[in-house]
């Protein structure tokens, strides 16, 4: 069953009155449990596509349907609420709240959802264990390495049990070992808990792990292959 369906997505930016077409009629679909890498050169439209799938940017044309809901037609208010309950985000530069500890960063989104305290704590500790940061539960981001911070970001993205996770260049700021470690955790979560991951990346290590690779160039999908075929 398709969890995400993208139909005819076009995005045109007006840069100093000169229109720039970032995406040009993209049609894609994603199924539950996929581990997908969207690749392509800089400026090809990877991040724009991810932003539109995540509902933080609006397409000029086309529709994004997530689990049967056309999010392009939602008001900003409803879109924000939809994101909170259905989509997890992992950013290139972690974007953790600097004054909160590992546990508090993870708990934050659950507090936004208004969950009860015991449930929030239980879920946060589960996720901290899942990303292997039990000894860093009460550390603030400035006491964590880049890899550890990104693992906290993954745990935060998973906190609300989203339908899928969008990860924009999650390994770009990490050294090889940290990147491998992070990808192993994500892959494990994907295999064991059937969580859908969609990456935008340049990183060969991510491509190596991905089971589906979508290549975008000049705002168009030029290739969409399963990893078995890539190999």
């Amino acid at each position, binding site marked *: 069953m398709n969890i995400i369906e993208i139909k005819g997505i076009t995005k045109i930016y007006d840069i100093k009155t000169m229109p720039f077409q970032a995406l040009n009629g993209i049609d894609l679909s994603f199924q539950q449990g996929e581990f997908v890498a969207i690749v392509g050169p800089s400026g090809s439209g990877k991040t724009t596509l991810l932003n539109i799938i995540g509902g*933080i940017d609006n397409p000029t044309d086309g529709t994004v349907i997530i689990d049967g809901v056309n999010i392009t037609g939602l008001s900003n208010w409803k879109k924000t*609420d939809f994101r*909170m309950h259905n989509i997890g985000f992992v950013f*290139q530069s972690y974007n953790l709240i600097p004054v909160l500890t590992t546990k508090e960063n993870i708990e934050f989104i659950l507090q936004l*959802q208004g969950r009860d305290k015991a449930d929030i704590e239980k879920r946060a500790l589960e996720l901290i264990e899942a990303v292997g940061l039990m000894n860093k539960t009460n550390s603030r981001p400035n006491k964590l390495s880049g890899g550890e911070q990104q693992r906290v970001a993954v745990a935060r993205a998973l906190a609300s049990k989203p339908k899928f996770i969008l990860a924009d260049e999650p390994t770009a700021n990490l050294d090889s070992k940290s990147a491998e470690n992070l990808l192993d955790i994500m892959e494990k979560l994907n295999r064991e808990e059937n969580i859908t991951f969609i990456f935008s990346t340049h990183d060969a290590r991510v491509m190596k792990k991905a089971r589906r690779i979508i290549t975008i160039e000049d705002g168009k999908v030029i290739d969409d292959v399963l990893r078995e075929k890539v190999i």
Partner: protein
Amino acid sequence: MIAAVALGVFAGVFMIAFMNGMVDARLQAIIHTEISSVQMHNPEFLANSDFSSRIPDADNVVQWVSKVDHIKGVSKRLVITSMIASAEANTGVKILGVIPDIERTVTNIGDKMIEGTFLESHRKNAIVIGKKLAEKLKVGLNKKVVITLQDAQMNITGGAFRVVGIFETDNSMFDEMTVFTRYNDLCTLTGLKTTEAHEIAVLVDKDSNSGIVTDVLKFHYPGLDIQDWTQLSPEAGYLISAMNQYLYIFVLVIMLALCFGIINTMLMAVLERVKELGMLMTIGMSKVRIFLMLMLETLYLSITGGFIGIICGYLLCRYLERVGLNLYFWEEAYKSIGYSSMIYPKIELNMIVYTALMVVLTGIFSTLYPAYKALKLNPADATRTK
């Protein structure tokens, strides 16, 4: 930001208390040193200070008035405008002929003596003059001065008086223009009866009771001109209203500075946290919640800073209310306009509440623009900000 708010509020509280203390000291000087709470005159006296405009049965009036509620003291006076001369100089003065012991019940001039006494010796034709006048006439204690004035028959007369005391108040003009002699000496010199007076000065227990007492006296003595201190010294009333206006302007200036400080700080906070705000929007924090978050942040900072500022300002003012703040280097300037250089800042609870309320309102108002800027952020761009 906490430090900036605390400093601004501290300065505000202190300046309000300082100005309040200054005005209060001036009012106390006007009432307790210069004019007392209420004065009674023959209606024509105030218009032209006419020597013949007297209260004929002053003793009976004094006796009746002293029984009215809220009265602390009643003193009859002769008030004569005359010339005073020494061997060196001469000038115009207002002579107050008083009964020293009774006068002490309505004014504190007896406590302002820097040399000699307030007419305590029984020496005939004794006079007490101000320090400023003593300097002008170049006379000191036990020196003689000559007073020239009108008598009861409207003839010019004069007498030699010996300086038995020199006083100094916070109003150098009062010190230069006012002298005190014994009531009886002045009666003898002018030929007035000892039951007559130009003025009856009344001191009431509380300044706020002056109006009530004035009404009672007016009702009982419709033929006399009876005025309280606000009418006798209109500049005192203007002083209060002007100072209130200055205080409003002053508070407004401080709050404006605070407002700009908060806007600047919060704008910086928003700009520094574009990425964080973008992330919060992305993961599902609504714009209303972001607005409220920024509003609460500012409120917490303002309240914390305001609280620190108010407490520090309050403590300092309470301390200075006890020991006073001596601005001796501006003594001359202060005295020339009737103020004491020793200021006792006066802080009141309503000022604290008012200031705290203003800080909170300023905090809320000042956050609107930075919060608006935050709400205009696009989460897609904000999360990728370098």
